């Protein structure tokens, strides 16, 4: 595996910047530019580089969709949130006349993880192959239902690509296009599944919409084994720990603190905070990232854990 690209990183509901949000960012950039040389492109880049991420950019608002670059010609995707639409357009732009194959791994079937399929251009193109993997019995039915009347104007008959559905048994490793894929049951309303992808000595974990009951030691041990020695763990860090175990207990999500602890115990190398709370603005996510890095620093064992926060368009090399 070569890397990961994020097409949708927001939890529960897509969000967008407002005109006021953009104006605030522009004002911040202009203030930062006061008194500085602004003649060359590198001068402008220098000003932008001096700004915090939240001031110069945005984490983005598409719901869950992550691409894993396996190094092979076939596409690997986790979840079909609204980020699937821009991914589909980018993949189609690469099309050179021959059919493309897409392997799509579903964590679960809640709306924010399936809403991209009706807008997934490659599914409309004859000659393409779209293989959708999951462990829910209702996998195909749930996707068909979202395009039934009156919810959507066209049903599955509009798709020109060959659509296939593959049921994965949790805990059993399956070889798919040169990648060993293992799914694991997670705690979430209606169940969700995490994925461990292994290839060419690299390991990527996709674990979203996953609540961690802190009273159950065997639960943590199961996840530590699943995350063991991962190069990258994409982790649901939607809530603060206090919220996750009090007012939002049983809402099916986790926190940055539990992410750091599990990754440290599993000796993972990189924790990527994912499935951001939709009410958080860019400053709030920046703050969560800074705090999580600080937590990692003050609790660090022998192996440092790199911590990042996913944003739409972010790429991580493995």
């Amino acid at each position: 595996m070569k890397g990961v690209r994020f097409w949708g990183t927001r939890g529960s509901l897509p969000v967008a910047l407002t005109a006021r949000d953009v104006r605030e960012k522009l004002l911040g950039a202009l203030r930062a530019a006061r008194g500085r040389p602004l003649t060359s492109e590198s001068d402008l880049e220098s000003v932008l580089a001096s700004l915090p991420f939240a001031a110069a950019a945005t984490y983005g608002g598409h719901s869950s969709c992550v691409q894993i670059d396996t190094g092979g010609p076939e596409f690997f995707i986790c979840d079909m949130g609204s980020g699937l639409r821009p991914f589909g357009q980018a993949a189609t732009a690469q099309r050179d006349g021959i059919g493309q194959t897409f392997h799509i791994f579903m964590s679960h079937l809640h709306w924010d993880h399936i809403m991209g399929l009706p807008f997934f251009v490659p599914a409309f193109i004859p000659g393409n192959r779209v293989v959708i993997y999951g462990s829910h019995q209702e996998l195909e039915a749930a996707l068909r239902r979202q395009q039934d009347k009156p919810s959507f104007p066209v049903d599955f008959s509009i798709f020109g690509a060959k659509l296939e559905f593959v049921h994965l048994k949790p805990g059993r490793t399956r070889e798919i296009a040169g990648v060993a894929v293992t799914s694991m049951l997670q705690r979430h309303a209606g169940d969700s599944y995490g994925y461990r992808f292994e290839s060419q000595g690299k390991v990527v974990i996709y674990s979203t919409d996953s609540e961690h009951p802190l009273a159950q030691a065997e639960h943590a041990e199961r996840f530590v084994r699943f995350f063991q020695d991962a190069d990258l763990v994409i982790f649901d860090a939607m809530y603060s720990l206090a919220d996750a175990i009090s007012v939002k207990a049983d809402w099916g999500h986790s926190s940055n603190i539990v992410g750091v602890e599990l990754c440290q115990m599993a000796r993972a190398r990189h924790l990527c905070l994912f499935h951001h709370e939709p009410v958080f603005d860019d400053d709030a996510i920046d703050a969560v990232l800074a705090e999580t890095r600080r937590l990692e620093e003050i609790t660090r064992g022998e192996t440092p854990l790199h911590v990042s926060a996913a944003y739409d368009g972010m790429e991580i090399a493995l």
Partner: protein
Amino acid sequence: MHLQIATRQVADATIATPAGRIDHRSAAEFEAALTPLVEAAVAARGALVLDFSGIEYISSVGLRVLMIAAKKMREREAPLLVTALRSVVAEIFAISRFDRILTVTATLDEAMALCSAAALAQYRSAGSSAAP
């Protein structure tokens, strides 16, 4: 043994002083030691003050124990206070947002002031620097 808890009664308040690390290995031990203190404080309608000056680290599992204790105390309108956090533990409270859902004070004196006038008076008369 990773964790030890000393206790003392000051008027209607109980001061519990755990020491060590509250992590995945010792959280159950912390919970087992804390539960009877919570029950006793609730029964007496008194305050429970956790003097964390000896706590070096607390993990998510340990914070969950505090959450459960605070919930039990709140249901019976008995105050639970956490005080004198070391800097690392204070940071963990802030990052986890536990500083927003628990009553946390900088010093034991401030905590006693929030318990009752009698507790504060007795605490001060005994000398605030007295060892537990």
